[in-house]
């Protein structure tokens, strides 16, 4: 149930409420049905946006959803979490014309919600039918966006797919890593159920690559393997005081919050400092504020324009009372009583030709909780020991998302390509599935 009042209302209320039929109709009417539309070019999965909007406009939301799913089977989640303001909506010609793009993300949600409601209803009809079984077996490691996308496309072609995932639940970052107000009402699990609804996909959770499973085993047992394991380790902070009580990793903070049945049981500081400048920093800071922190500050070491979080995301944080401080970096975390964090010493920075450097001018920000959002890293052990080629500490792939091994493809955050976005992961999985299918048939 969507909770609209109460102390934690913000966490369970859609950041962007879904459009109702009238709103969708008014918004769909704004689309110009551009030729070779810039929004399509800007979408990593290449959804035919003008077509799906026109289908909404003409009263065919099911057909609209099919247009979306043809290119992006996780179109429902992408409608919620895509930074549309830097992708399709930034490219919208109405952005050029009047600084107000068509609300493509909201319309995409309208269509996909319609389809998922039908799909998950009693008379469920999945929009795709599997092709005749090919007898080929494919292993997908990781049930995040790239793995689910890959598995669905392979299942459509009639291949038998087994997905292994290390978590208790499938969904990857959709389930564990995204702010709750972006995906309310257990949507990540609903969407997984939808994707698996095509049939021909077996899911096993609690199976971790390198522990319960080796690449040698799966390459022996399956005709092809897709690696979509994400970034499994967080960058460790080497700042003095990182071990103090009250210092936590932002990714773990978000995951705990997303899995929590009772927000009041989560410990939250009065004064929270989030170190970092990406989406994770924003998600952690806004949710800290929603959980009841009195003062929340994001400390980012570079100037505003270098922030990975979009301007929209920064403004979202600011409207939730989060203060964003640019060009400051943590020098040390200050201990108080009982080995607990009492503050962060931050040093002003400057960017020159030699890169980022400190100015020796610093200040102390009092804090009783510090969340580190300084990036995640690919746990390369399993891949490296199996001899997969890496680049930039991630799996190296070609344009088809094929690795250096003839039976292994990879996608999502663990590869050295694209941006670390859900929508890119979906595209990776789709491209890999097409390539795998070509190689198997």
């Amino acid at each position, binding site marked *: 149930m969507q909770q609209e009042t109460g102390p934690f209302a913000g966490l369970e209320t859609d950041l962007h409420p879904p459009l109702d039929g009238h709103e969708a*109709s*008014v918004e769909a*009417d*704004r689309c*110009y*049905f*551009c*030729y*070779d*539309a*810039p929004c399509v070019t800007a979408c990593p999965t290449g959804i035919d946006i003008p077509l799906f909007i026109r289908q909404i406009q003409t009263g065919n939301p099911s057909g609209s959803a099919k247009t979306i799913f043809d290119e992006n089977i996780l179109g429902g989640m992408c409608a919620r979490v895509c930074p549309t303001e830097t992708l399709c909506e930034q490219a919208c*010609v*109405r952005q*050029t*014309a009047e600084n107000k793009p068509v609300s493509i993300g909201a319309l995409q949600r309208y269509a996909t919600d319609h389809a998922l409601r039908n799909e998950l209803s009693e008379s469920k009809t999945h929009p795709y039918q599997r092709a005749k079984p090919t007898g080929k077996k494919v292993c997908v490691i990781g049930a995040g966006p790239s793995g689910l996308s890959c598995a669905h496309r392979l299942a459509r072609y009639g291949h038998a797919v087994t997905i292994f995932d290390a978590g208790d639940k499938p969904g990857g970052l959709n389930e564990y890593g995204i702010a709750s107000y972006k995906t309310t009402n257990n949507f990540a699990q609903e969407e997984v159920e939808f994707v698996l609804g095509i049939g021909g996909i077996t899911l096993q959770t609690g199976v971790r690559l390198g522990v319960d499973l080796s690449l040698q085993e799966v390459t022996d047992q399956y005709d092809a393997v897709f690696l979509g394991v994400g970034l499994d380790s967080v960058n460790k902070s080497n700042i003095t005081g990182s071990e103090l009580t009250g210092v936590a990793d932002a990714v773990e903070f978000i995951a705990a919050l997303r899995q929590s049945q009772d927000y009041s049981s989560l410990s939250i500081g009065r004064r929270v400092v989030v170190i970092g400048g990406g989406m994770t920093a924003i998600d952690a800071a806004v949710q800290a504020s929603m959980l009841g922190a009195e003062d929340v500050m994001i400390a980012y070491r570079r100037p505003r324009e270098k922030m990975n979080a979009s301007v929209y995301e920064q403004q979202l944080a600011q409207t939730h009372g989060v203060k964003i401080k640019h060009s400051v970096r943590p020098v040390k975390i200050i201990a108080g009583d009982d080995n607990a964090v009492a503050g962060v010493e931050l040093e002003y920075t400057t960017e020159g030709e030699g890169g980022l450097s400190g100015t020796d001018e610093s200040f102390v920000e009092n804090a009783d909780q510090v969340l580190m959002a300084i990036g995640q890293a690919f746990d390369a052990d399993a891949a490296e020991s199996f001899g997969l080629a890496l680049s930039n500490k991630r799996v190296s792939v070609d344009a088809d998302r094929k690795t250096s091994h003839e039976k292994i493809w990879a996608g999502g955050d663990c590869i050295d390509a694209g941006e670390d976005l859900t929508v890119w992961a979906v595209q990776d999985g789709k491209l890999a599935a097409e390539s795998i299918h070509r190689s198997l048939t």
Partner: protein
Amino acid sequence: MADLSNDFIGIKSPNPFWLASAPPTDKAYNVTRAFEAGWGGVVWKTLGEDPHIVNVNGPRYGVVHSADRRLIGLNNIELITDRPLDINLEEIKQVKRDWPDRAMVVSLMVPCEEPNWKSILKRVEDTGADGVELNFGCPHGMSERGMGSSVGQVPEYIEMVTRWCKEATDMPVIVKLTPNINDIRYPARAALAGGADAVSLINTVSSIVSVNLDTMSPEPSIDGKGSHGGYCGPAVKPIALNMVAEIARDSETAELPISGIGGISNWRDAAEFMALGAGNVQVCTAAMTYGFKVVQEMITGLEQWMDEKGHTDLQSIIGKATPNVTDWQYLNLNFVSKAVIDQDKCIQCGRCHVVCEDTSHQAITQSVDGKRHFQVIDEECVGCNLCVSVCPVDECITMQQMTSGVDPRTNSPINSEYQNWTTHPNNPMANS
């Protein structure tokens, strides 16, 4: 300030905006509200004989929407007034007394017999109304009973009934024409021959507005069945403009006053009708879409435009565009224009390119030097105006005349002399 006062065949009104005979003018209550809002006159909803007709008790209207559910076409199956004649006549009399400066015209429709027309005319005269309008236009319902458009489709009947009326009354007689004919000039000439003081047009166009795909019934649906209705609103304006112009430029009817009707929604539409020869205009759908207040936009818009152009009164605009309506064969074939895209205004939607590429002359690029860029290829552009028509940005694409040099499409020098089809070498029937 421009003078908007209107004298139409001796019927005076403070402005040229009348409400057409239709649902908005069926009762004293509505007409009073209209006059309070500023309408210059009304044509009272068509009166018939007692016993009064009845209307359906289900939906009477169907619509065509454009984007954002803007109403661009309205279809109706409502008949003439469904109130007793006495009540209507009493109300007409009272409202005219209350609003002496406004035009009060009464629309009439009775069976095609002379005594019937003479009888009702006498009763209308008693109300003090300024004139009558003979409804030879409604295409639905009443036409099945030998009235409305079934009269308007037979010029001989038009002339006959008009003559009866002119003989029976001194009130000015306006004949309202149906567009559901092949050539509007014949009914107009017939009205003139019968002695009509003016014609008004167009009445509604026969139409089925939509089909309910669940019930397979035309809309509006009455218990699962539909009947054709009369179509009006912005969608019919072009049909009406042409018919007004045809009558205005026909040598036989050039002097016949016209009250213009058909999709007039704003001051500009009204000015266009008047420029093509209408002495005033009648409005219905705009009022039925937005309420009577729209007349304020019409009055102020027309005033503003007239002031800006230096037109002091309506006479100085009426018919000013009529001489420029001609037959195709007299269009200047030496006139050459090309589309020009203002790159600063272009928002890159690409619709000009795709419609030209798919449906016309392949005369607009989609990219230049590998970058998305829409530019007219003069060597291919025939100047058709399709790109201008589909561009969502006003004034982004314009047609510009070539006045010198060589047309790169035909490699022919621009010829400043006028030449039309009647003398063109490709015309086997050419005069010289």
